């Protein structure tokens, strides 16, 4: 349980960090909080030649709020959300989701950017950021690029980031005051990775409700049929529950035709509970 040997650098700014990545020809890994990377190093599931520690780069710790949105650096910790240090432009969702990640000792070091760049299908931030339609900013030798959260993640543990690119910041547009939301995580033991995970955001000032499912074997999945059904509902009722259940089933059948009944049931219940929360509030 000891990592294979590697070289370690702790650059002072993003430019220097990217230069290190470029020089390593794809044999480097970026270290932020390390709460996913270091376990993988310990298990030798990854054996990079170089670790580029970006955790002390000042511009990656920014927290900036204006009337329309919040801009947060990649290295802001989960605990900063949990403790309300980050202004919650999503009506409490940021704080709730931040607090639901792992354990406090993990949340003190783990970062939102690291979670997003790692793109574990069972992780919380990717699901939430897709639901909020957040914008991911990343840097490469040519400058700065932006992409929506849903385009950023290509699949399990796979993002658009190339070997010489670093996720720099995340912009979250403020939800309107009449927005409703729900979040539900299914897991056997509190703090562990989700068996299923759903976030729903209903904002009358945005086109359609966004219902996003995580902890599948794919990237965070936008449930389009369910979103349409939710758009037609005003409040929670037995009829609403039935309609949502049917819609989730349809979405799951389209996305995962060979999903086993247990997996289907876990995901269905998780989404229904998230929607119920949003429509009951």
């Amino acid at each position, binding site marked *: *349980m*000891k*990592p*294979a*040997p*590697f*070289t*370690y650098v*702790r650059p002072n700014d993003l430019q220097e960090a990217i230069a290190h990545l470029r020089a390593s020809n794809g044999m480097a890994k970026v*270290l932020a909080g*390390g*709460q996913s990377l*270091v*376990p993988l*190093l*310990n*298990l030798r599931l990854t054996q990079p030649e170089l*670790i580029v*520690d970006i*955790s002390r780069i000042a511009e990656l710790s920014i927290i900036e709020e204006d009337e329309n949105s919040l801009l947060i650096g990649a290295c802001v910790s989960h*605990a900063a959300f949990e403790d309300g240090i980050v202004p919650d432009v999503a009506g409490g969702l940021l704080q709730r989701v931040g607090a639901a990640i*792992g*354990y*406090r*000792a*993990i949340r*003190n*070091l783990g970062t939102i950017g690291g979670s997003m760049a790692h793109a574990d299908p069972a992780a919380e931030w990717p699901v939430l950021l897709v639901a909020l339609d957040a914008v991911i900013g990343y840097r490469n030798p040519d400058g700065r690029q932006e992409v929506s959260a849903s385009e950023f993640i290509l699949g399990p543990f796979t993002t658009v980031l190339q070997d010489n690119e670093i996720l720099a910041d995340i912009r979250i547009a403020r939800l309107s005051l009449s927005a409703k939301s729900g979040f539900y995580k299914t897991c056997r*033991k*509190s*703090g562990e990775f989700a068996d299923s995970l759903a976030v729903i955001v209903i904002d009358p000032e945005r086109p359609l409700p966004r219902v996003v499912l995580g902890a599948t074997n794919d990237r965070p999945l936008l449930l389009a049929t369910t979103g349409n059904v939710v758009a037609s509902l005003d409040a929670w009722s037995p009829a609403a529950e039935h309609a949502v259940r049917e819609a989730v089933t349809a979405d799951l059948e389209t996305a995962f035709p060979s999903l086993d009944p247990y997996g289907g049931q876990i995901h269905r219940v998780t989404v229904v509970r998230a929607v119920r929360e949003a429509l009951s509030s």
Partner: protein
Amino acid sequence: MSQVKLTINGREVSTDVEPRLSLADFLRDHIGLTGTHLGCEHGVCGACTVLLNGKPVRSCISLTVSCENMEVRTIEGFDDDAVMAVLRNAFSEEHGVQCGFCTPGVLISARDIVTRLPNLPRQRLREELSGNLCRCTGYAGILRAIEVAMEELKIGGGAK
């Protein structure tokens, strides 16, 4: 090898380490502070929990080199700590310890819980403590001990 300078239980340490050396192995094998225990070595069991700049972290998934200029406090560093004294006593009285393997990590998490969240109900306490595995006590004694300590700290004027 990388040069690293950090403070451990108030004492400044400056040395060369391999970049791959975890903080837990550094504390145990290089500094001789074997109170920090290693269970799973991938961040699940909580036995290796220490304070880094005052906050609990997993020392098994923290690299020593990345702790440059930081303050580490291990279970050996709480001799004069009033909150830990209350917790130690409560763990002894309420049977919060059996084999003792998880205890250093549990105590450091417990100290964080009672100072950060002083009025925690039982269910939330269980959740907060879910990052520390104990295979002996069944947790009942640990939960009682933390609750007794919380009460005592309230009467005594809270955490110092």
